[in-house]
C-alpha cells in the first residue's frame, strides 16, 4: 500500500470511528464530541498556517469570530435562512483573511505575531463597540426556529452531532488532500527554508497569502458552525483566549500532522473537563500538563506517533 492510500485509509478509519462513537458514547460525551469536532475544524485551519507554513498567528480568533458573527448577525438581523447565512459567514471570513493576510504579510516572525494579535484585538473591541448589534459580551442567542437546515432541526443531539461530523470529515479529507498536493508541499518548503523556496522560483508571498486565506476561511467556517450548532455568538469568542486555544490544540496534538488538531482539541477539552471536577484551579492542572507535554513530547501527540510508530503519518 503506498503512502497516499495509507493516508486515505487512516482518514476514512477516523471518520468511521467517529460515526460509531455516537452510539457508543453516553449523550454527555457525544455532545462534547460534537463541540470538539467543530473546534477541531478551527484547529485544522490554524494548523495549515502554523504547522505546515510555519507562520505563527496570534489573531485567529478574528477569523473564527468573522464566521461566527457572519452567520449569527445574518440569521438574527437579516431574517435569512441558514444557507445564505452560511455563505455570508464564509464570504466574511474570506474577505477578512484577504485583508489581514495582505497587511500582516508585510511583516515576519515576531512582528507577524504582534500584528495579527493587534488586528484580532481590534476585531474584539469592534464587536464590543457595536454592542447594539452584537450584544457584546452578553452575546446573541440564536432562535431554535432559525437553526433549521433543509427542514432538519440542528438543535437536536443526533442531527447536531452528524452535521458537525459531516463538516469535520469534509475538512479533514480536504486538508489531507491539500497537504499532499503541490501547494501543500510548497508550504512545507516555505516552513523549512523560505529563502531556498524563493530561489527555487516559488512565489513565497503569494503562497503565504493563499495559506492565510485558506486557514482563515476554515476558521471562519468553524466559527459559523459553532454558532449554528450551539446557538450562541458572543464577543468572548473574538477575545485573545480564542486565538491562543488553537495554538495550544495544535501544539498538543502535533503541528504539521492532519490528525493532530483533532487529538489536541479532544485532549485539551477533556483535560479541562476532568480537572474542573476536582478543583476550581483547573487551569493550573491544564497548565502543568501542557508544560510536561511540551517538555517530553515537543512534537505533540501525533508527532510522537509519527516518530515512534507511523513515519508515513501525513
Amino acid at each position: 500500500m503506498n503512502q497516499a492510500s495509507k493516508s486515505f485509509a487512516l482518514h476514512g478509519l477516523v471518520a468511521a470511528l467517529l460515526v460509531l462513537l455516537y452510539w457508543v458514547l453516553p449523550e454527555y460525551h457525544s455532545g462534547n464530541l460534537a463541540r470538539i469536532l467543530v473546534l477541531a475544524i478551527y484547529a485544522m485551519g490554524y494548523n495549515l498556517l502554523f504547522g505546515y507554513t510555519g507562520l505563527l498567528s496570534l489573531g485567529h480568533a478574528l477569523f473564527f469570530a468573522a464566521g461566527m458573527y457572519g452567520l449569527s448577525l445574518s440569521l438574527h438581523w437579516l431574517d435569512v435562512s441558514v444557507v445564505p447565512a452560511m455563505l455570508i459567514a464564509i464570504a466574511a471570513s474570506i474577505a477578512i483573511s484577504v485583508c489581514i493576510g495582505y497587511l500582516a504579510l508585510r511583516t515576519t516572525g515576531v512582528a507577524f505575531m504582534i500584528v495579527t494579535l493587534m488586528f484580532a484585538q481590534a476585531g474584539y473591541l469592534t464587536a464590543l463597540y457595536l454592542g447594539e448589534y452584537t450584544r457584546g459580551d452578553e452575546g446573541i442567542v440564536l432562535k431554535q426556529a432559525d437553526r433549521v437546515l433543509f427542514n432538519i432541526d440542528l438543535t437536536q443531539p443526533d442531527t447536531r452531532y452528524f452535521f458537525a461530523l459531516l463538516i469535520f470529515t469534509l475538512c479533514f479529507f480536504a486538508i489531507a488532500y491539500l497537504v499532499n498536493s503541490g501547494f501543500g508541499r510548497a508550504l512545507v518548503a516555505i516552513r523549512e527554508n523560505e529563502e531556498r523556496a524563493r530561489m527555487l522560483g516559488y512565489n513565497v508571498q503569494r503562497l503565504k497569502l493563499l495559506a492565510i486565506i485558506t486557514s482563515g476561511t476554515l476558521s471562519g467556517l468553524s466559527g459559523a458552525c459553532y454558532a449554528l450548532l450551539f446557538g450562541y455568538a458572543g464577543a468572548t469568542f473574538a477575545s485573545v483566549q480564542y486565538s491562543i486555544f488553537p495554538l495550544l490544540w495544535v501544539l498538543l496534538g502535533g503541528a504539521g500532522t492532519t490528525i493532530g488538531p483533532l487529538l489536541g482539541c479532544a485532549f485539551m477539552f477533556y483535560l479541562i473537563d476532568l480537572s474542573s471536577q476536582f478543583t476550581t484551579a483547573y487551569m493550573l492542572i491544564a497548565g502543568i500538563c501542557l508544560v510536561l507535554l511540551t517538555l517530553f513530547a515537543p512534537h505533540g501527540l501525533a508527532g510522537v506517533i509519527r516518530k515512534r510508530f507511523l513515519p508515513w503519518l501525513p
Partner: protein
Amino acid sequence: MTLLSTVNLSKSFAALNAVSNVNFELPEGQIRAIIGPNGAGKSTFVSLLCGRIRASSGQVFFNQQDVTALPAHERIAMGMAYTFQITSVFSTLSVRENVALAARRVIGSHRQQVNERVETTLEQLNLHNKANDIAGDMSYGHQRLLEIAMGVAQQPKLFILDEPTQGLAEDEIEAFNKLIKQLAKQATILLIEHNMNVVMACADYITVLDMGLVLAEGTPAEIRNNDAVQAAYLGTQ
C-alpha cells in the same frame, strides 16, 4: 546568442561600491567563471543577476528581456537556477522531496512527470541510493550535490553556482569538474569559484572582478598571463 547581460550594473551599500558599472555578457552554452579576491563583489554581483538583491542602478537582461525590476522568483521561473554559497537544502525533508520541490515548480502538478524528472536527476547525480535519506543527515559533500540536483531538476537555461566546491575534498572536486562539463551540455553555466584548479579545468572564459569592477576578461590562458590579474588576485608582482 547572448543569454545574460548587464549594462552599467551597480550596487552600493552606503559608501561602499560593492559592484560598480559592470558590463557583462554571457553567451549561451558557455561555462563562465567569475573570480576575484575576497570582497571583490562576486557574490553581490550574482545576487544582482538572480534578483536576491536589487541593483542601485543599471540593468540586467536575461533571454533578451529586461529583468531588472523582476523579483527573484520570477527570474528563476524564467529559467535561472541558483545554488547557494552556504549549503541551503530542506534539511528535514527527504532527498527525493528536495528534488521534487524543484521539479514540481517547473512541471506543475503532473505527478508522473515530476517523478520521472526526479528519478533521472537523482541518477545523473548519483544520489539515487540516498533518495529516501533525510537531507540534513547526509554528509556535507552529498548535501552540496543535492543542492546541485535541485538546480538540475529545473532544467534551467542558466545555472548559477556560487562557490560550489567550497568545503569539498580533493576527490569530490574531481568528480565535480566532470559534473560541470556534463551539465554544460544542458545549460549555460556561471561559476563563482575560489578554487583555481576548478576554474582552470572547467571554464571556457573567465571574468575577473576586483573592488566591484571588471578587472579583466579572457580565456583561462589569457587570464593566467594577465599581469593586472596576477597583481590583484594572486598577489605576485
